[in-house]
């Protein structure tokens, strides 16, 4: 021990503390540039006139005073409300079947229900056009109504939102306390009353949360109405039209800010619900193990099979649409619609752009997310800075993709922004996508880190091992399953997302999901279907590889988990 150290800080003392501080500062600065400043610029844009002068709420007054735009609000609320009313009960029964019954083929049913997550939201809309469009296969079922409009939007949204609601409700329903059911049974309570007095109340937070999430998804989704909305205007389309069509950035900003409201409400409700739900299940709860009831179990299987068949049917329709040479005139099958060069000048290159962007999002996003979560959870000192980081990480969940994309236009395209060089690059698309999906990834990482012994860092300090060594040697390996999950989550979302990137892609960085919108606009709907199928296949392939890899590699590297 050198006597120089007496009473003071030596250089190497500060090395670790400074490394932590610098990393935290740097990452906070990046978060500010990627999330907070763009949002600020969209807020300020909404209170400026075209010349950039402050006009207060004049734009908002104008917005609400324009009958066509006010009509869009009503339309958006209508389709969002109707979709919520349809999806939540369907998803509840489906989740109930998966968690509370002894239905056969649970794994298969759970897998099928998740398929829509792997697809861009345009896919169900395209499939619906093939089914119910003017030349649709079964358009008679609409009794003369048109699919282009609220009917088509709601049908597409039900497909697209179903897995999101189902996942939330599965979690809620799997947190059951068997003791409550035993008590009810001991009192001779009839089944229906048990359902009404025990099951529903314990799932109520999940139901509320699912309803808000679905409502927000519909309000802010762009892919389905752009394909199948026809002349039925919704807010998400208005943003796009105001900005891309009329170059009216101020009005676009106003609509975007209005779109934040349901997302923000949903975010707050979700936070409250999460807290309550944890409290519901005490440490002494006994998990409920469902008992076989053949009549109920088979009825549930029937229900799930119908829902599953519809999901698979829509997917199969899209695949079929992509393979038919010229619907409905030439029904021979082939790959001609996959020759994207014939429909879109960018051809396959937009797909490869998507692959590159998704890979970059998965790699750099996971890296950033995990290091950030580590600093928040395990960093020493700078308590307020770590709290701020955590708060900023929560923001993206309350910001619809459309809003984020538009915010990026305003912020990064501003002439005086030193970061303006990023505009139009693949890097900016990647940053935007990471920011868009940051919250869920961040929460996954913090949950994994919270489960680690809080004293690992203390032990390594006492052994004079620098914290970054323990980070690489212990923290990362122990959290590997969560890290893989985050990477896959980011990859799949980067492949399918359209709402944020539609505003900031350029000729050189066009993505596959944007190509779908473009090809659909230009009437090449079969090619659009083909591209949607390619994206879905890619996501599914990555998921499949992940499953196989975690079976083999993860099991080997996680050997220590076995007792």
């Amino acid at each position, binding site marked *: 021990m050198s006597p120089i*150290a007496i009473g003071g800080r030596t250089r190497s003392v500060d090395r*670790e503390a400074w490394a932590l501080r610098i990393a935290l500062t740097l990452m906070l600065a990046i978060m500010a540039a990627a999330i907070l400043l763009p949002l600020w610029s969209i807020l300020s844009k909404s209170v400026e006139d075209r010349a950039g002068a402050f006009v207060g709420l004049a734009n908002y007054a104008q917005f609400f005073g324009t009958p066509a735009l006010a009509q869009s609000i009503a339309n958006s609320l209508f389709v969002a409300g109707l979709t919520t009313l349809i999806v939540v009960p369907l998803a509840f029964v489906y989740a109930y079947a998966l968690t509370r019954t002894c239905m056969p083929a649970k794994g298969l049913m759970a897998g099928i229900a998740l398929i829509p997550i792997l697809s861009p939201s345009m896919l169900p809309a395209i499939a619906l056009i093939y089914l119910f469009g003017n030349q649709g296969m079964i358009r008679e079922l609409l009794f003369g109504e048109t699919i282009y409009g609220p009917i088509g939007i709601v049908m597409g949204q039900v497909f697209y939102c179903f897995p999101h609601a189902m996942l939330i409700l599965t979690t809620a329903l799997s947190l059951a306390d068997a003791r409550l059911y035993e008590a009810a049974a001991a009192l001779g309570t009839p089944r229906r009353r048990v359902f009404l007095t025990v099951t529903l109340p314990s799932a109520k937070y999940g139901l509320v949360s699912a309803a808000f999430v679905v409502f927000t998804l519909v309000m802010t989704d762009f892919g389905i109405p752009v394909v199948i909305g026809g002349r039925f205007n919704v807010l998400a389309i208005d943003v796009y039209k105001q900005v891309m069509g009329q170059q009216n950035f101020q009005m676009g900003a106003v609509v975007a800010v209005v779109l934040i409201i349901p997302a923000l409400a949903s975010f707050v409700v979700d936070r409250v619900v999460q807290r309550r739900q944890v409290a519901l299940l005490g440490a002494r709860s006994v998990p409920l193990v469902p008992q076989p009831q053949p009549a109920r179990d088979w009825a549930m299987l029937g229900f799930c099979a119908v829902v599953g068949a519809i999901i698979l049917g829509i997917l199969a329709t899209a695949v079929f649409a992509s393979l038919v040479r010229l619907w409905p005139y030439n029904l021979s099958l082939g790959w001609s619609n996959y020759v994207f060069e014939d429909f879109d000048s960018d051809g396959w290159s937009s797909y490869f752009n998507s692959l590159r962007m998704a890979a970059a999002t998965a790699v750099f996003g996971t890296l950033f997310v995990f290091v950030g979560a580590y600093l928040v959870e395990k960093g020493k000192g700078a308590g307020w800075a770590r709290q701020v980081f955590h708060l900023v990480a929560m923001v993206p969940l309350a910001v619809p993709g459309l809003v984020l994309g538009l915010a990026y236009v305003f912020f990064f395209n501003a002439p005086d922004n030193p970061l303006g060089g990023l505009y139009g690059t693949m890097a900016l698309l990647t940053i935007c996508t990471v920011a868009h999906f940051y919250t869920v990834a961040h929460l996954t990482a913090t949950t994994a880190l919270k489960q680690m012994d809080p004293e690992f860092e203390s032990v390594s300090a*006492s052994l004079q091992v620098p914290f970054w060594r323990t980070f690489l040697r212990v923290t990362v390996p122990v959290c590997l399953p969560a890290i893989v999950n985050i990477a896959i989550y980011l990859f799949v979302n980067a492949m399918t997302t359209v709402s944020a990137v539609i505003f900031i892609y350029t000729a050189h960085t066009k993505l596959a999901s944007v190509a779908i919108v473009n090809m659909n606009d230009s009437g090449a709907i079969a090619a659009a279907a083909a591209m949607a199928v390619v994206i879905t296949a890619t996501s599914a392939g990555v998921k499949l590889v992940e499953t196989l890899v975690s079976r083999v590699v993860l099991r080997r590297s996680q050997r*220590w*988990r*076995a007792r």
Partner: protein
Amino acid sequence: MTIAGVIDVHGARPNGSDGRPPYLTVAGLEKRFGSFVALSGIDLAIPEGEFVCFLGPSGCGKTTLLRAIAGLDRQSSGTIVQAGRDISDLPPSRRDFGIVFQSYALFPNLSVAQNIGYGLVNRRLGRAAIAARVEELLGMIGLVGSGDKYPAQLSGGQQQRVALARALATRPGLLLLDEPLSALDARVRLRLRGEIRELQRRLGVTTIMVTHDQEEAISVADRIVVMNHGRIEQVAAPEAIYRTPASLFVAGFVGTTNFMTGVRSAADRVRVGGFDLQVTPGDAMGTGQVCTACVRPEDFVIRNVCPDTPNAIQATIEAVEFLGAVVRARLGSPQLPDLPLVADFSLNAVTDLDLARGRAVTVALPPERVRIFAGLPE
């Protein structure tokens, strides 16, 4: 085993104040969490090679003090000097200690050998030297041949030993143990505390162990630091803590004590209810002051007591409890109404005098065994 029994087994110990220079000195230490004062006025000197226990009720600040010494939670004010070096402002990585946590905090993805060698790897030791040291430590904790296992494959007691070996691998000057045994079942705990003590003697490493188990502290420590409400109540050898507690809190926290609250009526008298208790004079307490007399159960005398023996009390045995070598009796006396007394009698006395429930007895309290403290018990 009773506390008195533990002391008798081990006998007297060096009390640490024999002129050796302190290895670790804590002076004027204070720790605040916001407005909450977790530690205040902590002064402590620990000689080299001593085994010290921090003992106190839950929340009294034992862990906080240990973590301040380790540098894991910086103190709000005060200084810490270790081996002549002021370490008050050093981060843990610049201090010289090994630590074992209650949870052990073994790295789950590293094997036992990798865990033990964790601190050796970055010390510019050769691969062979590290392997040899790990082997040596595995031998020391009796786990030779288990180096390739993972922590999850070990029992709680084995994990605890691995954590100990990891902490000792780099030969630290100070070993810190935060309730290292509390996660284990009673039998393993008893064996391991002996092993820890044995190892500490052999290596001569200055050791601080936090515990809230008084029996554990008494059986392993050279000196015990009794803490309460973020302050040190007493620092002394286990026997001194037991026989001459420095405060009412210590008297009540360590071992069993009869509290008799009364008023000082004369220099050698305390009036408890209607009873005049004779005590040894010599403290500074004035007459009329409220005070509490403390008596250990084993200090009651039952043989050769006559009515004019000092502090003779007529009582009835209300309940007896068989504790092995001794029998614990609850005594009710009309002289001390509503004040049941707990007295221990040897099995011999019980047989000879035919002590049983309902027996009327006369017991005496030798004045020199009665300790007086100002105020009321907590």
